[in-house]
């Protein structure tokens, strides 16, 4: 995980890639956040590449957060992420405007 990606409590700023090679790493961090049961803020402004595994992980996060009544919001969202979510039919599930 790169230096540019900072962890603050309840929030994640994604690096430029959210794909299967990063999925295990982000899975750990999402698990941690879900266990803390706080509001989670995501910043996807830097995402330049996202694949099916990355989107599925985000979908799983939102689904689990909904079940746990954790509020997940986007602070920023790159065009790549938006377009990939739209193509994959996940815009609504990921609460991407």
């Amino acid at each position, binding site marked *: 995980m790169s230096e540019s990606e900072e962890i603050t409590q309840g929030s994640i700023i994604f690096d430029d890639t959210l794909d299967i090679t990063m999925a295990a790493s982000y899975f750990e961090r999402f698990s941690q956040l879900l266990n803390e049961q706080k509001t989670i803020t995501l910043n996807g402004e830097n995402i330049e590449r996202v694949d099916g595994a990355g*989107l599925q992980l985000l979908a799983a996060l939102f689904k689990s957060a909904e079940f746990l009544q954790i509020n997940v919001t986007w602070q920023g969202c790159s065009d790549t992420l938006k377009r990939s979510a739209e193509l994959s039919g996940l815009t609504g599930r990921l609460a991407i405007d």
Partner: protein
Amino acid sequence: MSIDLSQFKQTFLEESNEGLDVLESGLLALDSGTADDEVIHAVFRAAHSIKGGAGTFSLTEIAGFTHIMETLLDEMRDGRREISKEAINVLLTSVDVLRELMAAARDEVSPEMARVNEVQAQLETVLNSTSADTVLTQDDPDNSAAAEQSAGWLIKFHPHEHMLRTGNDTVRMFKELASLGDLENSADLSALPEFEHMDPELSYLSWTIELKNNEQQGAIDKASIEEIFEWVEDDCDLTIEPLILSSASDESAPQNDVPPAEQSAVAAQETVENVTPIAAKADAKPALKASAKKKKITESGSIRVGTDKIDSLINMVGELVITQSMLSQMGDDFSMDKIEALREGLAQLERNTRELQESVMRIRMLPISFSFQRFPRLVHDLSQKMNKKIELKMLGEQTELDKTVMEKIGDPLVHLVRNSLDHGIEDPETRVAAGKNEVGTITLNAYHQGGFIMIEISDDGAGLPKDKLLRKAIEKGLVSEQENLPDEKIYDLIFHPGFSTADQVSDISGRGVGMDVVRKNIKELGGNVDVTTEEGRGTTFTIRLPLTLAILDGQLVKVGNETYIIPLVSIIESLEIETDNINTIAGTTEVYKMRDEYIPLVRLYDVFDVVPGTTRLQDCLLVVVEGDGGKAGILVDDLLSQQQVVIKSLETNYKRIQGISGATILGDGTVALILDMSGLLTLAKEIEPAQSYA
């Protein structure tokens, strides 16, 4: 850690070049009417792969341009469009544009968008022409008939758990789907386990996708969809059915309806992205060509090597290690009674080294088809332009030669083939009048002979006009009227620089344009080119080239304390000097009478200013060499061994020296200079201006 895609970009570009070759050769086969169904499928697949790869690497110009080509090819493939000459010609031009776009991507410069847009417009004109959709497919009524009647396709896609781990990406697949039409996608998350129990690299989602026809792209072909899922067909459950909308009368007319406003914004956006980026970019960058700062063009830096060659190399290295180990062990405990074993070991080492060297050299060997493959297109284009009917035959395409030689022989070959097209093959009327088939034939043939590769360029055209050539040579003072030149010397005149100017060529209406440059370039590669011809029957150019430029067969000669290497290919013979045969012309120039001709003598020690072992001619040996179109005798103290030497560039390591083509390191560690015969003889002439060469 994320994957740096740029490391694969070069591979993509190289593979795409191969795809372009497939495209071009397939289109040429379609044009000549010799293609079967598989050819059009192969052409379509090549375009499709290039588009997909370009999209992955964000090469939007290439992806967008190829998309239009693909659409046209798709219609041809399905039988919805006739394979017309006009369409093939535009597609062939498009291949050229794609090559330019690839080159720009490789060099990281902006492409020339004006030409791209011009050809794109031509493609769109063909695409929008009325012939489309008038020829209905005969072979798969389920497919396009269904597509014509339905609003598109309903796709149910359920990846198996492991699919993502195979490197396949759903986002990429959806992007490709969206490039075919208007896409609406609905994801099913019901199979997602609880977060803590999920494996983030497994796939749990499934999708129901409506892929609708739109006005711009027309009916979507089922095969195009299947092709997108081709790589995952064993890794997913997939159904593709015609999409019948409930209000079909309102929405389903696929060809002419304006896309409904409520259709997916995603699909609309994707359509725009895939179809129109070129025009958009062109607007944004009106003066791309002028502003482009062209980076240094990089030669293709990689080579594909067959695994058999790698295996052979590994075997050789294994043998070498064993021999080295044996010798090392012997050295640790050496005694004179082991001298025979040492000799055997050294002989084994020499064998291993030579075999290893040969294996390494084989790695650089490529089939000459890499060079030949440009000619079908060249012949196609030029024969159309000149209204000639020409068939191109290529033989020995698998004959291998060194990559560097291949790269350098390309231009001379093009020149010779163009000459055959232009001046050799007659127009159909002339051929018929001469009792020939109206279709002329140009044959390219490659084969190995000795340590050389031979390339023949033959035509069954008019042949060289001997009388005109001779007359021209006499006019120019190259030949005297009294001189009785044998035929081969007369034909050889076409390689004389005096015959290379345009006015002279038009006068003699024969070959000659730049032939001197062709021969010069081939000689620089250590080869030669000859011509044989028969008036009215045709002409054959025969090129002889060394298989590699890295290794040379040389004769080691001694002059004083220096060792020089004369390329064996330049040596005619070596002899002891008989002083009676030596004459002096004009008091300074020494010549040697060898049978019926006089050859000038070159004293190497004078040329290179070294102290000789002897200056007495009767104590020297004479090496008769050929270079720069003439013979000369090189005086040396002694002939040493003949051996293969690895050429080291003098320019790279020191500087260019006239008369020296390179250097090598001998077995005893000393450096020996390799003589360049043409340069040496020129240098000798400068030292002895009165000297003339036989």
